[in-house]
């Protein structure tokens, strides 16, 4: 009897576990099924969006302020799509992105007015962190989405080499191609080969910044450092005051580990050497063992691995997860930070602030120079080279149909990102985007100021190297390096260099 009862209870436990596991999976299809409807157009009459009424949209003065470019836009299919007769009404265009959460909302806002005005039914597949894997499977399986977003230029070029992508220059014609090159002067070249354009730059990020708590700075009498020497002096002062100056992690999200440290190296290189050195490094004209690259490693190591600068040293950097690494800064509501500065791009806050991360909703911490958490430009090192590091996602076109062309052309216009810029907030790589669109948003303003104040914008170098290095051996090597507190720089650099594809 006793044995029976035990078996029964064990079974019950297993059943409960199974049911709960199934429960969580069976609820998930519901939101994903509902997702497309958010982006789908309602068939309501788009009178406000009628192209003739779309005045120069730079000034969002008209009450319903549709985020649409004025016709003629300079792109053929887009002009046609925005015509009053809505020639592509009811046509479907699918687009796959990695954007979820705030970024997903932002993109939905960006295309909402376009969908309404043209009647094109845009189906957005927000895949999240496994986006690249799903995209590759779909492309190789022969059923790609019509368009897709992608972060790494090398991946774009790899697909282009396999003949999977449509040449956007051919789709938009010579006039359109010239317009693209003029509006994306610094980014279009990343995924172009000769006259062929393989992707349209979209969302941009600026990485040359440091997050810090301004009120705690003021209370201690710390000044925002403008130069490297001031940064080191401040760090020493913070250590002397019994705290740790830097929050630094190399872990996460997921299995993407090490990129925060490669960003540090790339930053230092842009701040100490001619941008051409970064270019040569990317194209492997100079190797990882080059003295200039080693100097950048040594400089980063002298800062992050110095006793007390990061609580726990290099091991802590490798171990810490990006999501939680800044939590000590919020000790006692930012009155007694356990670490004071983190170099991380603009998207970090408020999504990863501890209160919002745990409870969702809005963070109680205000971002701003007068608020709780602020952003400073990364201090300069050289007087000549004041480059900033950036990155950009871009859109691929995988199927050629008129309505797909129309959407691609729309996303290339400044207005293509307007809904996102003015709402959730995002930087556009399109130079025609008026800077006053960023005005109300502290983060975007800081990022825009950093970008415009830089002597050069260097694109994320590891994203431009062969993926097996830039997302593989460089990441692995730099984790190794941090785990040893920078004592094995030479062997790490040799190992990374040896892994460069022949």
């Amino acid at each position, binding site marked *: 009897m006793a044995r029976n009862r*035990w078996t029964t209870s064990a079974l019950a436990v297993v059943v409960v576990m199974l049911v709960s596991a199934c429960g969580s999976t069976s609820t998930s299809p519901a939101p994903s099924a509902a997702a*497309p409807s958010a982006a789908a157009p309602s068939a309501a009459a788009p009178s406000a969006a009628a192209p003739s009424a779309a005045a120069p949209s730079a000034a969002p003065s008209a009450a319903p302020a549709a985020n649409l470019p004025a016709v003629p836009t300079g792109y053929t299919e887009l002009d046609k799509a925005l015509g009053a007769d809505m020639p592509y009404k009811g046509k479907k265009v699918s687009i796959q992105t990695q954007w979820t959460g705030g970024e997903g909302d932002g993109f939905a806002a960006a295309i909402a007015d376009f969908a309404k005005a043209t009647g094109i039914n845009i189906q957005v597949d927000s895949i999240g962190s496994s986006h690249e894997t799903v995209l590759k499977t779909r492309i190789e399986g022969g059923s790609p989405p019509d368009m897709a977003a992608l972060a790494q230029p090398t991946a774009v070029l790899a697909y282009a080499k396999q003949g999977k992508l449509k040449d956007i220059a051919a789709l938009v014609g010579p006039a359109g191609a010239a317009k693209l090159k003029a509006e994306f002067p610094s980014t279009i070249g990343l995924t172009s080969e000769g006259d062929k354009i393989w992707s349209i730059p979209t969302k941009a990020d600026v990485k040359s910044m440091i997050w810090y708590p301004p009120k705690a700075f003021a209370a201690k009498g710390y000044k925002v450092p403008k130069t490297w020497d001031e940064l080191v002096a401040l760090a020493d002062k913070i250590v002397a005051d019994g705290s740790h100056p830097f929050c630094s992690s190399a872990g996460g999200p997921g*299995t993407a580990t090490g990129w925060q440290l490669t960003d540090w190296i790339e930053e230092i290189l842009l701040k100490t050497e001619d941008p051409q050195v970064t270019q040569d490094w990317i194209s492997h004209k100079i190797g990882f063992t080059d003295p200039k690259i080693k100097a950048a490693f040594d400089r980063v190591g002298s800062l992050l691995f110095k006793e007390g600068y990061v609580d726990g040293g290099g091991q802590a950097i*490798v171990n810490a997860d990006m999501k939680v690494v800044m939590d000590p800064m919020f000790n006692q509501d930012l009155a007694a930070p356990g670490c004071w500065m983190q170099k991380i791009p603009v998207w970090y806050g408020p999504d990863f602030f501890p209160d919002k991360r745990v409870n969702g909703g809005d963070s109680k911490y205000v971002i701003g120079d007068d608020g709780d958490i602020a952003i400073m430009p990364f201090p300069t090192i050289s007087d000549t080279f004041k480059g900033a590091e950036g990155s950009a996602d871009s859109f691929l076109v995988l199927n050629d149909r008129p309505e797909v062309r129309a959407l691609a052309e729309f996303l290339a216009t400044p207005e293509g990102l307007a809904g996102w810029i003015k709402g959730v907030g995002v930087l556009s790589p399109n130079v025609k985007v008026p800077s006053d669109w960023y005005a109300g948003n502290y983060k975007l303003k800081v990022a825009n100021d950093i970008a415009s104040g830089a002597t050069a914008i260097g694109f994320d170098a590891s994203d431009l190297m062969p*993926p097996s290095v830039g997302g593989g051996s460089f990441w692995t090597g730099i984790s190794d390096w941090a785990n040893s507190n920078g004592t094995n720089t030479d062997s790490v650099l040799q190992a990374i260099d040896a892994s460069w594809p022949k």
Partner: protein
Amino acid sequence: MAVDRAQGSGSYGSSRIVLVGSLVGLALAAIGVTVLIDREGGQKLLASIYDLLGNAAGAEALRNGQGDQFFAKLLLAAIALLVGVGGIWLLFTGASSLVERLRPGVRDRVLPLVFITPAVLLLAIYLVYPAVRTVIGSFQDEAGAFTLANWESLATPPFVEILRNNLLWLLIGTTGSVGLGLLTAALFDRIRRESLAKVFVFLPLAISLVGATVIWKFVYAWQPASQPQYGLLNAIWTAFGFQPIPWATQFPINLPAEMVILIWLQTGFAMVVFSAAIKGVSAEIIEAARLDGASERQLFLKVIVPMIRGTIITVTTTIAIVTLKIFDIVMSISGGRNHDDVVAVRMFAEMFQFFNDGRAAALATVLFIAVLPVMIVNLRNFRRQAAM
């Protein structure tokens, strides 16, 4: 045909019904397949049903990618189930009813083929073809030309390290799971409340590898020495006055730390199978050994273990294959970035992150070759058991 009719006249009527029924069924299955092939088949079908029911608005919404998408997906799932299960059933009943109309001599020879052909065909399409394609792919560069570069690169230090890690997994992971499983099975055989004890060892097996890794990440969690340790292991470790150790991210301690997770999971499986086998050893033999003066240790090592040898081989090979293919644990701990990379994780990375399809194919082939001998041992064992 005349001969056939004369011989099978008794079952002719019913077999004709079966024949007609299977033809109708095949037609339905064909329709079902066309719905399944279409990317929006479910929505379209539900929309036409709505049209028939007079719900024009609902149908329009469905066609525009809105409306009752969830029901459309449910409908699609139901059709997939019907076509899958019903189609197989139809195939076999239909085919066997056809074959039964043949002469008995021919029939006996054809009938096994009828049942085996679909399985062989499916195996060929889904197993043999991809396997051959993968081996070919491992000798091709990006343009499809012949190259040995993919295989040569496996001799470079990073890949030697990966192969070494897989070997360690095979040796330590397998012996750990089998040894502990055998030990617990033998010990639990002697205690009261045996089922309860077994449940606790067996329960981890119900957890997925990724889920288990997440749990163990909390056990291994590391904080700087100045901070409170919330990781179980480091909390205990530092209580004895030691410095905290990053168990999951520092080589070489991370290798055994990851293997412990697998052993924790697989011991339960091994124990349950061994326990059943030990109970199958007849009481007379054990009693005879005791009467001959065998000690408990001799009894276990010289009587029970040889008696359950077949089971040990089966369990060992099963777990050996699991360790060779190990992916989830390493991927979830840190993606193999701290000298703990293994073949399967690297294969995924080469394929989906590095765009080196050829090298991924070479790694897959390595895995395939590594698993082969284990499979052969297992098959031989099966054959011997069948002969017994």
